[in-house]
């Protein structure tokens, strides 16, 4: 009987394909926009910046979010204002005291910068339907042989129902008796490749997982996901359980790092 179903499907499918317009008929059906062509070139050649930049200018919904290592804090004064302040200080404060103030200010600024420093090992470029992750050269581990699986500390009640992995990649699926699941994957942050995340279902926002920067996005209408990298590996943790649970698992993984 399976053969009958197979043959019906093959014939029905072939009929449907035959009913579609031919290549010649479709030749002038549509002139693709330059936006589309750029995105496709980006996909084919694995280059990303041209496409991302041009799109973000056209569509405010598509924005580029950059994370660099270390995060640069910009304490800016306009040049004119800065000169005015310097002149004022020169006129009213003795030189030695001025030097002391300058040193103290520098130390203060450095302390502020250190306290706010974030370990970030990727750049994320957000498009309408997906985000592209490019790992920085500071991501240190590209050696497949050195790949060590780090399992997430999932809450009680969840059991591993599936796992797979090869060549710098590991994935595990956990489920509880209520049908909620946690989907975890661990990747080598190969700088030449990067990752593409489907973010069409939800806004990507920057988050912190311990000291490491990451992204929060939705994998579907019911699935929360986070992505982060500690420089050695890139992690994606998601599932149908609540966001707080997922974030807590991730933070527990990074505790002590």
């Amino acid at each position, binding site marked *: 009987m399976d053969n009958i*179903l197979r043959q*019906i499907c093959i014939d029905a*499918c072939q009929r449907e394909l035959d009913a579609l317009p031919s290549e010649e008929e479709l030749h002038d059906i549509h002139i*693709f926009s330059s936006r589309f062509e750029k995105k496709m070139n980006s996909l*084919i*050649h694995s280059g990303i910046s041209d496409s991302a930049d041009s799109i973000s200018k056209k569509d405010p919904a598509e924005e580029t979010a950059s994370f660099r290592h270390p995060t640069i804090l910009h304490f800016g004064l306009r040049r004119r204002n800065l000169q005015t302040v310097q002149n004022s200080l020169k006129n009213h404060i003795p030189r030695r005291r001025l030097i002391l103030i300058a040193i103290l200010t520098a130390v203060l600024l450095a302390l502020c910068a250190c306290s706010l420093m974030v370990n970030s090992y990727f750049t994320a470029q957000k498009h309408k*339907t*997906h985000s592209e992750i490019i790992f920085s050269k500071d991501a240190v581990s590209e050696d497949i042989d050195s790949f060590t699986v780090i399992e997430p500390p999932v809450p009680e009640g969840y059991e591993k129902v599936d796992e797979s992995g090869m060549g710098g990649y590991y994935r595990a699926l956990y489920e509880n008796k209520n049908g909620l*699941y946690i989907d975890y994957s661990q990747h080598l942050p190969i700088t030449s490749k990067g990752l593409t995340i489907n973010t069409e279902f939800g806004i990507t926002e920057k988050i912190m997982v311990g000291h490491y920067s990451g992204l929060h996005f939705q994998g579907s209408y019911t699935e929360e996901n986070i992505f982060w990298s500690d420089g050695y590996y890139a992690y994606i943790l998601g599932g149908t359980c609540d966001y707080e649970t997922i974030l807590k698992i991730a933070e527990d993984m990074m505790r002590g790092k």
Partner: protein
Amino acid sequence: MLGIYLRLLDTEEERTRFRQLYDKYKNLMFFVAKGILKDDYLAEDAVHEAFIRIAKNFSKIGEISCPRTKNFSVIIVRNISLMMLEKEKNNAHEEYNDELYSGNIGAAPDFDPDISVLKAYEYETLLNAITQLPDIYRDTLYLRYFNDFNMKEIASVLDISEEAAKKRSQRAVKMLADILRRK
């Protein structure tokens, strides 16, 4: 199912083949997407998204110019367009939602549908009945039998869980039997 994948077009050969596929099917895929979405901008987005998914599943493609690859491309863009349409309408059909957007469904046994009911009907009747199936169910059968994909591969192509793919296949056969009984 996590919406993430490694960029797969690593070699020049893969990029060349992908470019061939793109040149050959982009108009057809646009035609299919536009037919569903009725909007050029959205249809382009659907085609782009479809090519991303094709890149993800590029290892499943053999010859570029063959009915299987054509079917594969059409089904992917149709699937994505339908999802986009649902999202646009924002009034998701419950049955659709269950399978398209959520991996959170009950366990399905292995694909073993009761197809004995098909024996009682004329071949042409069966063919017509297949065409009456909703796209998402018909496509699952086409991928199974026309493209010879297993459940894991179907799940990957449709970006759903393996459980959902199995369930969808079973439901397709059940719906087919219902259509035939009504005749």
